[in-house]
């Protein structure tokens, strides 16, 4: 390294061969992420060679290179963390909210199942009236008789629901 610092280019390959695998291994151990470690090792290596001329006789090349590598690892990790935060907030803001959330869908499915169970306990006439009313396209006209039947069927359904699942009060 000292020879390279003085301008002896023949030392370049020796220094490169010693430093490159060493920095890659070190960054890999520090970051536990191959891609990030490769980037950090490359950045550290480039800085080592950019500043090679500043290296002095009393310097420890390993400590010097590791110092640069630690700085690069920290910088890259911080940059990635910041990028994650930056991406996180706007990305959340663009998530569509029109549809039901998974929680709402689960509650709805549970209530539907409970309602079907209670419906099975009603009389067939009440059940048919309610099913005809709840159908997307009602098959029968809503006459006063049907409305009366519907009112009774709903009352019985409420009673049956309270008996099965209890009251809100």
């Amino acid at each position: 390294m000292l020879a390279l610092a003085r301008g002896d280019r023949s030392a370049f390959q020796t220094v490169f061969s010693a430093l490159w695998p060493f920095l890659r291994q070190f960054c890999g151990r520090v970051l536990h992420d191959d891609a990030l470690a490769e980037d950090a090792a490359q950045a550290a290596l480039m800085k080592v060679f950019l500043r090679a001329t500043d290296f002095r006789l009393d310097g420890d090349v390993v400590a010097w290179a590791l110092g640069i590598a630690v700085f690069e690892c920290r910088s890259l990790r911080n940059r990635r963390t910041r990028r994650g935060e930056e991406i996180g907030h706007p990305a959340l803001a663009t998530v569509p909210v029109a549809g039901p959330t998974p929680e709402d869908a689960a509650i709805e499915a549970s209530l539907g199942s409970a309602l079907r169970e209670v419906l099975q306990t009603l009389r067939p006439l009440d059940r048919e009236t309610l099913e005809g009313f709840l159908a997307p396209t009602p098959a029968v006209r809503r006459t006063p008789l049907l409305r009366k039947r519907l009112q009774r069927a709903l009352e019985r359904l409420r009673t049956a629901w309270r008996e099965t699942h209890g009251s809100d009060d």
Partner: protein
Amino acid sequence: MAPMTDQAVTRRARWMYELGRARWASHILLLVLPLLLLAHLIGRPAPLVLGLGGSIAVAGFGLAMLHDRYARAVRTGVLAGVPAFAIPLVVRSLHLLPVQTAVDPCIPAAFASGVIAGWLVSRRAVDEEHQRAFWIVAVATTALTGSLGCSVAGGGGVVGMIAGVIAGSAPVVLRAGARS
């Protein structure tokens, strides 16, 4: 950063090394450029300042980039050349030598300053590992730097200064040769 092959990393690292070396070598210009500015301010001809000064700056930068020993040689050469640059100018402007002589008073002044420069360069060269390379580069730089001032006496001043450099170097070089 995109993944690179080892060859690409080697090339890039080499490029970064040369870039760092160029940055370091550019420090030599901090020594050369003020001298050229001074030469221009005291009225030395612009073509001379540009020609000689440009040569010193370009050669100094290139040599400093090549190796530290040449950077040291250029620094030593420029500093040793400062007396050769200044003394003839001072002699002429202050009329320190009698003017009624056949020889331009600046020529002996250039010779004397050349002796000083040669002695300084040679003393410094004996401490170097590659003495000959150091000495050649340093003497060439001294000659160019000194010529900025010695040329006030024309070609005779330059020749006198170069003769002085050789005369000043000779004893030190001979003694170093005798030791080794």
